């Protein structure tokens, strides 16, 4: 009787046909009003006209004093930060080293196609088990690459034990990150965990679109304070030299960093051998020898 039961109940559906959608215009007006309404409207209480005028004058005086003391930029930043949703504790290791994640999210950061893609992944047991859950409130448009592509960054919280258990038995032993990591789109980089980023190893060329040869479009994530990156390509056979020796005297690729991202187009580049990170004043932040990307052309390097 089970299917009959459903049929029986279907038979008493008071509205068996879908109703038309209400007009959208009133809703859009409310949406627009929400966008223009200040986050906190103070209710006004007037004891009388004079009291009201006095209150307004005092408020204006206090506001002017605050602007003079704190400056425009600081006060605006404070307001925006107040509106931002709380950062998950697990993602704070990333936000502490990546300024791009600390700035307020704007409409430009929320690419609908990417949001759709990430939302689909949020219901996929493989994505949840291997990559974890994306933190959409921290999704940012980081830069526009030299080849015109928008580069987005999205932190992922590490897969939960529950999500790992939902993976097929054969995949349950696979080692996955135990800390939050940063994913880049559409060019896939490395693991994106803080240690990889700080070690100069969060670099990759996972975008094979537009008929380009693999390896020509590179994206690298670097921590705060790095304004420019010089990379010396590793040379020689990767198989023979797993640590990618750099040819002495070879010319480096110099890349300017924007919002923690160094994006560069380099046909023939296979892996970084040596890196030097520079501050905006030209001084050296860090020198990395034998940098090892372990990106797609190289496979999993130990």
């Amino acid at each position, binding site marked *: 009787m089970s299917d009959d*039961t459903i049929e029986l109940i*279907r038979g008493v559906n008071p509205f068996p046909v879908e109703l038309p959608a209400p007009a959208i215009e009133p809703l859009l007006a409310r949406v627009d009003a929400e966008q223009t309404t200040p986050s906190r409207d103070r209710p006004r209480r007037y004891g009388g006209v004079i009291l009201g005028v006095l209150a307004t004058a005092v408020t204006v005086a206090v506001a002017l004093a605050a602007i003079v003391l704190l400056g425009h930029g600081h006060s605006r930043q404070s307001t925006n930060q107040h509106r931002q949703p709380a950062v998950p504790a697990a993602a704070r290791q990333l936000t502490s080293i990546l300024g791009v994640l600390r700035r307020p999210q704007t409409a430009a950061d929320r690419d609908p196609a990417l949001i759709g893609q990430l939302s689909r992944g*949020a219901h996929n047991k493989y994505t949840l088990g291997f990559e974890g859950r994306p933190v959409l409130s921290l999704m940012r448009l980081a830069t526009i690459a030299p080849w015109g592509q928008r580069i987005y960054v999205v932190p992922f919280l590490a897969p939960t034990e529950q999500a790992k258990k939902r993976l097929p038995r054969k995949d349950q032993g696979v080692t996955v990150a135990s800390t939050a990591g940063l994913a880049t789109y559409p060019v896939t980089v490395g693991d994106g965990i803080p240690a990889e980023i700080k070690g100069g190893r969060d670099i990759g060329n996972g975008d094979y679109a537009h008929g380009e040869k693999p390896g020509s479009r590179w994206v690298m994530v670097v921590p705060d304070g790095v304004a420019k990156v010089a990379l010396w390509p590793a040379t020689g056979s990767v198989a023979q030299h797993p640590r990618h020796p750099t040819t002495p005297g070879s010319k480096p690729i110099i890349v300017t960093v924007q919002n923690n991202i160094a994006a560069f187009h380099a046909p023939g580049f296979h892996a970084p051998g040596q890196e030097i990170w520079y501050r905006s004043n030209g001084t050296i932040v860090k020198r990395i020898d034998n940098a090892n990307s372990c990106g797609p052309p190289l496979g999993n390097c130990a």
Partner: protein
Amino acid sequence: MEGRAWFEQLYRAHAGAVRTYARRRSDAQTAEDVVADVFLVAWRKLGEVPGDDPLPWLLAVARRTLANRRRAGVRESALRGRLRFDRSAPVLGPHAASDFDETVLVALGRLSEQDRETLLLVAWEGLTPAQAGAVVGVAPNTFSTRLSRARQRFERAFGAQRAIRVPAAKPTSTEL
């Protein structure tokens, strides 16, 4: 603005379904209010709305919105000292029904809210167990188990109600 365009597309595609869902469980004005509330929430949380199958997410918000309104309504009634609650009465939409249909409605009304919603999401909204599970916040398997149990309880309630109604005793109907 891309987010806005996507939002409008979302509304045009699913506002009717949300309205119908709410209307099946409330009066016309409440249903329209629920549609507005649901899509305002969707606008505020655009990033959380699943791109491939947003309807279960929207219905989940509609379900919570309706529950909040019902709770607020009950609180208001209680304050006015006019609260009447009849477990035998279905919390369902308007329906001029035959005796048989009324028996089905009363049997539904005798179920717990969870059992009733489980059945209605499948029978009225036409959702799959995976979609319906997303609406009530449980895994598809859990929902299938709930559905099976809810069917059994409905069948018992329906059988009992038919036995009562054989002498053509008309049940009282009180709308909440």
